[in-house]
């Protein structure tokens, strides 16, 4: 038996950098360093753990859709221990929205072949958290999303989902789309050996024609949503800051009272 896990990952602008919009109201990627979305590291980690705990032959493929630099995200995942990578790159992808991204990912996942799609809960830039559900809908397989614990046994995936109102135990048969939260387990750091090994691992590049997609199905042209304006929020006017010299709590209470919170 073998098990094929595909981990879709995203190369995102560093949140500690100065993120802003380009003239066409897409995210400006030139002025900010990118990196593998932290939330995707948890997915790579869970894929590695499934592989380590399995008697089957497990093959982990990391997949990204993005510009040339996005290879850095793939390289990071490979150095953590993934087996191979697929990079979907095409100039026509610029400005693709969540619906379009799910289309490209779904085509690539089908072409690669999969038993399990294992992703992070959301990207750390758009933070919509909709791509895993969109992939399940497109692929026509169960979604087992937002798991804080995940286990795989005999072709069944089980996991715990901590929702707003309840904690649920979920179960589905493979093939399935799973997403994991930052509570699923600390992601490992790549070892030196892992970093060296990653340099030799295969990275396949596909463009839109490899996925039988037309330019107008993706990118800004194919987007289902339009950003009409993006305005920088004015910096907050400096607040009042006091040093506690025994009256800090009462001073804060007086402020809250002046704002009618008390």
């Amino acid at each position, binding site marked *: 038996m073998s098990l094929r896990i595909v981990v879709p990952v995203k190369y995102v602008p560093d949140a500690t950098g100065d993120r802003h919009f380009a003239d066409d109201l897409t995210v400006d990627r030139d002025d900010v360093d990118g990196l593998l979305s932290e939330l995707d590291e948890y997915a790579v980690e869970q894929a590695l753990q499934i592989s380590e705990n399995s008697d089957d032959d497990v093959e982990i493929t990391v997949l990204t859709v993005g510009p040339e630099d996005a290879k850095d995200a793939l390289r990071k995942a490979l150095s953590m221990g993934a087996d191979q990578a697929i990079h979907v790159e095409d100039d026509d992808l610029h400005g693709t929205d969540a619906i379009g991204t799910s289309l490209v990912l779904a085509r690539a996942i089908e072409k690669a072949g999969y038993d399990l799609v294992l992703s992070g809960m959301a990207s750390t*830039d758009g933070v919509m958290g909709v791509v895993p559900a969109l992939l399940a809908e497109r692929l026509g397989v169960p979604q087992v999303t937002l798991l804080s614990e995940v286990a795989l046994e005999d072709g069944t995936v089980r996991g715990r989902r901590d929702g707003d109102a309840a904690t649920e135990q979920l179960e589905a048969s493979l093939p399935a789309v799973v997403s994991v939260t930052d509570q699923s387990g600390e992601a490992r750091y790549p070892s030196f050996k892992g970093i060296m090994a990653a340099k030799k691992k295969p990275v396949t590049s596909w463009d839109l024609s490899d996925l039988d997609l037309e330019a107008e199905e993706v990118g800004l042209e194919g987007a289902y*949503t339009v950003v009409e304006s993006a*305005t920088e929020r004015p910096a907050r006017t400096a*607040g009042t800051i006091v040093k506690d010299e*025994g009256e800090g709590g009462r001073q804060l209470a007086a402020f809250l009272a002046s704002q009618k919170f008390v």
Partner: protein
Amino acid sequence: MAEVLVYVDHAGGAVRKPTLELLTLARRIGEPVAVALGDGAADTAATLAEHGAVKVLTHEAAEYADYLVVPKVDALQTAVAAVSPAAVLVSSSAEGKEIAARLALRLGSGVITDAIDLEAGEAGPVAVQSVFAAAFTTRSRVSKGIPVITVKPNSAAVEPAPAAGAVEALDVTFSEQAKGTKVVSRTPRESTGRPELTEAAIVVSGGRGVNGAENFAVIEALADSLGAAVGASRAAVDAGWYPHTSQVGQTGKSVSPQLYVAAGISGAIQHRAGMQTSKTIVAVNKDAEAPIFDLVDYGVVGDLFDVVPQLTEEVKARKG
């Protein structure tokens, strides 16, 4: 006037506040038609009517509780076919966003998530969003299909507006995928008696500076004096001091209350992403250099174990 579908979030017939906010926003763009599913669906009708629902489409079936997300998408798709609405509104919970996304895909529509405001526009509803840790405000619209938009809690003040609220049963046939993901068990979260974090008007959060699970009692006491929900930073959650369900931040819950109180929280970018749209922000922190002080309307540099209990006592005294 065009109809606007509003997906009803309820617990056994008790409508959650974000749904009432959606009804208020829906009235700006059309006539709200509510869709209530599962156990107690019909019991929601009176509340929904009071808040502007001209019609309440209901369907009760075990599938909504026994399987994840997809049965609800099937029902909403059926409702869309019955009503042909100008837009579909869902509240921005984790599940709400998944429902909205799958519905949009089926309808050939665009989806916008986490709107903080909604306006009627010439080419359809315009959604206001706060992005990049609230550094930017964007205005977006769906350009294809029926707009499917999720709205964050606390984005509108609830305004009652009595309407007919005529109940109609929805005839739902579940798709093949509806039973794909079984909910094997469900353990409702134990009620703390405090407001729900994402819906609360006031949130009091503790971070690394709280320094221990037992010390969260200090945070809880302040929260209770203010009638607030309790939140926690990722550092406090990772240390095991408070449950993940209370985590405020990029990977936890996003909150937008009238008042946010940060105690012992430095204000890392990931935390700011989850609370920066709060209307009024106050903080208590020993470190005068903590980035949280860049955001505050009022900050106290001091030991939270001195300042917070004093604040709690003063709040109680003022409330009499």
